[in-house]
């Protein structure tokens, strides 16, 4: 016996087989980000200067490119999920909500890709 009302079934309301995936991914990315954010903040605050040479050599040094890419990907992912929930809570109207959600997804994808590209470009140049 199904607990769902017949109307809900024909309207496709109810389980989309997504379950707690969104909620859980928010937590998993948060846990993964926690040590990375501490690392990034300490690194940025201890940069001796803000000039080109200092910043690019820091980006390319040691394990920094890997940690930076991890941080950027996880932060983009976590931010994408979080802003999505905020939009779903506060933006009404089918069209504006859909547009906001689409923009959220596209911009976070762009931010993640641009960040990874920039780190690789600096790191591979300094390695070459």
């Amino acid at each position, binding site marked *: 016996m199904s607990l769902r009302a017949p109307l809900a079934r024909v309207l496709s309301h109810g389980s989309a087989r997504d379950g707690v995936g969104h909620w859980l991914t928010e937590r998993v990315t948060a846990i993964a980000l*926690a040590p990375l954010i501490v690392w990034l903040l300490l690194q940025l*605050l201890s940069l001796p200067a803000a000039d*080109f040479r200092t*910043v*690019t050599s820091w980006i390319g040094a040691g394990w920094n490119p890997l940690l930076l890419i991890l941080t*950027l990907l996880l932060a983009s992912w976590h931010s994408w999920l979080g802003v999505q929930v*905020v939009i779903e809570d506060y933006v009404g109207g089918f069209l504006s909500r859909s547009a906001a959600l689409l923009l959220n997804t596209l911009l976070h994808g762009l*931010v993640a890709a*641009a960040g990874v*590209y920039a780190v690789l470009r600096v790191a591979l140049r300094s390695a070459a």
Partner: protein
Amino acid sequence: MAERPLSPHLTVYRWGYTMTLSILHRMTGVALAFALLGLVAWLVSASLGPSAFAALVPLLTSAAGKIIAALAVTALIYHFCNGLRHLAWDLGFGYERVDARRSAVLVMVVTLIAAAICIYLIFRPGAGAA
């Protein structure tokens, strides 16, 4: 789509400071999405070469740039601390009212101390000199 009831009806509750922390978590989260955009813009300009990066440096080392950096760092520290509080709740700890209030005070105190240290480092003489 038919008008559906909205929940929770926040206006029927007496204000408690844990509510302020709750909405601050969202506000700092959204602010940090923009901070991430700024971080990536900084990295991209560094990847484009010395002249592109040099164009950005005066912006970053200006008073306005440092204030924005200080606000972003404060938002980050708050969201980090309150995020740990949320993770503790997710594990089932700290739900009692007295515990939730105590952890709220702890989050605010830790945030203020850590943010004050970071803001000092951002604004200390000679910081971020080009």
